[in-house]
């Protein structure tokens, strides 16, 4: 018996989720602690916010929102959820 084709799609999309969260974390961590660890007197400011905060939290959020939108629109596949036609397919 062959595997339900929808599960292949689902598995791939779950992996994309893991990849996104790792990217998100690295971005967030690198800017926050990379730029934020120096003495506060040496901070530069963007729109009034300290640079580490601006890049990590504000830009990081915008980047993630754009990335998620792009990936969902481009790579996520629409599949039916109900499966009348799948009856004969119960085992792997």
């Amino acid at each position: 018996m062959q595997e339900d084709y929808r599960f292949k799609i689902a598995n791939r999309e779950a992996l994309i989720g893991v990849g996104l969260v790792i990217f998100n974390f690295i971005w967030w961590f690198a800017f926050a602690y990379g730029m934020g660890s120096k003495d506060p007197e040496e901070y530069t400011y963007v729109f009034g916010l300290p640079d580490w905060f601006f890049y990590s939290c504000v830009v990081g959020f915008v980047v993630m929102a754009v990335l998620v939108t792009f990936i969902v629109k481009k790579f996520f596949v629409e599949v039916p959820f109900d499966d009348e036609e799948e009856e004969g397919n119960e085992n792997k």
Partner: protein
Amino acid sequence: MNWEAIIPLIGFLIIIFGVGMYAGKKVQSSNNFLDEYFLGGRSLGGFVLAMTMTATYGSASSFIGGPGTAYTQGLGWVLLAMSQVATGYFVLMILGKKFAIVTRKYKAVTMVDFLRKRYQSKWVVLFSAISIIIFLFSAMAAQWIGGARLIESLTGLSYISALFIFALSVLLYVTIGGFRAVALTDAIQGTVMFIGTLILLIAVIIAGGGISSIIGDLTAENPNLVTPFGSEASLTPAYVSSFWILVGVGVVALPQIAVRSMSYKNSRSMHRALIIGTIVVGFIMLNMHLIGVFARPILPGIDVPDTVMPLIALEVMPAWLAGIVLAAPMAAIMSTVDSLLLLVSSSIVKDVYLNYVQPKASHQRVKWLSIGITAVLGIIVFLMSLNPPELIIWLNLFAFGGLEAAFIWPVVMGLYWKHGNKYGAIASMIVGVGLYILSDFEVFAQPFGMHAVVLPIFVAFFAYVIVSLATKKFVSNQMNLS
């Protein structure tokens, strides 16, 4: 009494009731009561799905407590809160299509339903149902107290009358409308939170004389407030990062979130919810916590962090607008309470009663039992909130982490790893919850400088895998995901 602030709040509650009534009609006319009452007939669209996820998640803890802590800790706490952006896309992508397809195939209505069909084990079900009932019940009591305190501070009524008003409004529409009512009102509440935090943030920035001047004031008061390390320089990178587990990826395992991942109509609603959810969660978290930080130079010296939000709103805005904006935390608390209430009652009715007490109960009986138990639970929580026992407060602190430690692997690995079996699931739950409870003792409090939830989740993973592999030959009859 502050009528200018109260009237918008009352208006808001009336709208909520209207929605409950409307959804209640659908429940009456539905021919599959369980599916409709607990899942809204699996028909949620993208916008409602995204909002109900956000509102359920952005509960009192983050709405009232979060800005308060940000007020004390500074930008470091906003950084920590931003780990929650991940929930906006991660949960739906991980549980995603597979969970939707499989739960339909199993005809599962709750997360425990899914576990029961997946593992075919009475012990998995009973252990899960008990964890849900205990942990969520305690989480709920704390939310009620928060809701009542908010009404109390806004209206000047006594705590008991405030609690009574809160309890009555929640109970009325949850009992009538079920999941659909909760999800629809979540959509309204999510929208209120979204717009409310934006208006408040702008008002706070104007009152503080612009971002630069606010940040300047903060730096002058204590330079640590503008670093990622918190006001006492005590927030280490390891500790802050571990919140990615607790409030970021671990959220996958919260039953109230998981149940929403089986309620949507089709792939298109899921895709829309992914995009809307990420934007809305990130936006609300960023604004709300920034409000807390920016409030500091404007209103210095607030002792009780929980009161930062109401105080700053009344300070920088006209009373009527503050009333509308404060409907947002009210909304957050109510929506959390509703969904928890529904979950605990579904656990009792579906997972315990229908499985092991009276599997052949009639349609009518199940219906009245569901509504009755929801109401009775509400009354018990009300009584407990009148004079909250110590144990409840202790349990509430542990509720979310405990649920994550119990469920994350049985759910995620149950979906994606075909060799996972009931012994692995039970081992993982016992190890996860057990270790997590041990963390209450000093030795385990913050292993490796991380939040107490990290280690149990890590160890529970190995328990799941090792025990599943070791017992592979004893398990023959479990249902395979086709």
